[in-house]
């Protein structure tokens, strides 16, 4: 009896449960914390597939940096259950309809995918290790990799420009 399926089911249940709780909790701070739980569960899945680099980077970037900023903003704005806007009933209905449509499209797209013949390699393989991944990124995929880094740079500069503009305006006025 192998232990991997048990871990897989445990992590899947954890990921789905925290994702559901993230959507349904009323307090935005709780939502952020549940989302962090989801990220940890997904990192666990990566480790099961021996994609160690992806697992750790997922924690560092998403749980350690992006979610901290989210939490930051939410804590500063002091969003509470009382301040959450009450949505129109029709809006909720339309939202459910749109979500259902998306689900339909996803199911239709995945129906024909050859998922059954492609089994994931569990607990083995070296493609997720940093040496192999780095070589792939800097030889075969070097152009898309560099383009995406340029995109990040432009986003960073854009953020700095927007931030600077506002301070100079407030100083002038």
């Amino acid at each position, binding site marked *: *009896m192998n232990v991997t399926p048990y871990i897989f089911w445990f992590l899947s249940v954890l990921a789905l449960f925290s994702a559901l709780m993230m959507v349904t909790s009323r307090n935005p701070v709780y939502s952020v914390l549940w989302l962090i739980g989801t990220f940890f569960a997904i990192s666990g899945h990566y480790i099961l597939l021996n994609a160690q680099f992806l697992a750790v980077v997922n924690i*560092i970037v998403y*749980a*350690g*940096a992006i979610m*901290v900023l989210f939490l930051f903003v939410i*804590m500063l704005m002091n969003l509470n259950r009382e301040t959450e806007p009450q949505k129109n009933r029709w809006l909720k209905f339309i939202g459910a309809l749109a979500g259902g449509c998306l689900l339909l499209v996803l199911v239709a797209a995945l129906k024909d995918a050859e998922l059954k013949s492609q089994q994931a390699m569990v607990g083995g393989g070296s493609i997720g290790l940093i040496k192999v991944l780095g070589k792939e990124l800097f030889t075969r995929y070097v152009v898309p990799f560099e383009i995406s880094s340029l995109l990040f740079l432009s986003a960073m500069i854009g953020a700095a420009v927007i931030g600077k503009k506002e301070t100079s305006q407030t100083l002038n006025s």
Partner: protein
Amino acid sequence: MMLLALDIWFILEKVALIATIIGLSFFIAMYTTYAERKVAAWLQDRRGPNRAGPFGLFQPLADGGKLFFKEEIIPLTSNRFLFILGPALAMITALLTSSVIPWGASYVDGSINIPLQVADVDMGVLIVFGIVSVGVYGIMIGGWSSNNKFSLLAAIRGASQMVSYELPMGLALIAVLLMTGSLKMSVIVSHQIEHGWHILYQPLGFIIFFVCALAECNRTPFDLPEAENELNFGYHQEYSSMKLGFYLFAEYINMFISSAVMATLYFGGYDIPFVNESAWGLSPLMFSLMSFAVLMAKVLFFLFVFIWIRWTIPRFRYDQLMNLGWKKLIPLSLVNMLLTAALTLWLNK
């Protein structure tokens, strides 16, 4: 004996190792509080704690007992669940990092090979980094859920400080990784045993890393999250009893673990300099214990430096802290990284 395809002896070995390391962390953290007060007294020409036991050696036990028996108060307006989660998270993240540090040379006796490291994973250094970046949550959650303005301000200060100083820390680490070519902690140590300690090649990188470690541990001169004269007591203002104890204790465990990380990354880990100790013909047990003792000596030295700095240097102002982090340390560490990369490329050709 196999259970669920896992070797039961392997699990027992790891559990014993983890329990030892956690016990050791608690013990060292306990006596670091004592050392802090004794060193402070020494630097300020006082006697320090000297009532409980010989030389006041039972003082940490008395402090712990006091914290245990204090009344536990959870403020009515606080967020009860998160209020309890905060100190627990601070403690967990402080202890987690110890799992990837090699605490000594492997115990090799015939076919038995017991590494004194819980997990020698491919991502060793990155895992340290990941846990450090998650360490913010203990402070943030505790500070926010207290529902106190001072606590919230301190939590936000602490979080922004830790996020800012993670960047130069990571960049300083990259220079080390460029030299070893591996992220495995065990490989980093064995590389240093062969080629000399990293502090010889990376003095600037080490200084940057050390400053960032001070900031990540919220130690003076970067202890702005608990600046008493500005924020009363900081992010743990509403905490009492053992929950406060957890926060205070987590700081000392963080100091201990970051000392161990610095010793491992820059000071050769469990290596004794200038000699080849593996040729001495010691018994395997003695050899492992000796290497462990050497690492501990280095760690104790770093702990002393942490305390020494706290009682020597005054606190930074908040804008000075941010200036130092973003405008001085990050460019410096970038230059350090580029220089190391260029030299590595040039020398390897």
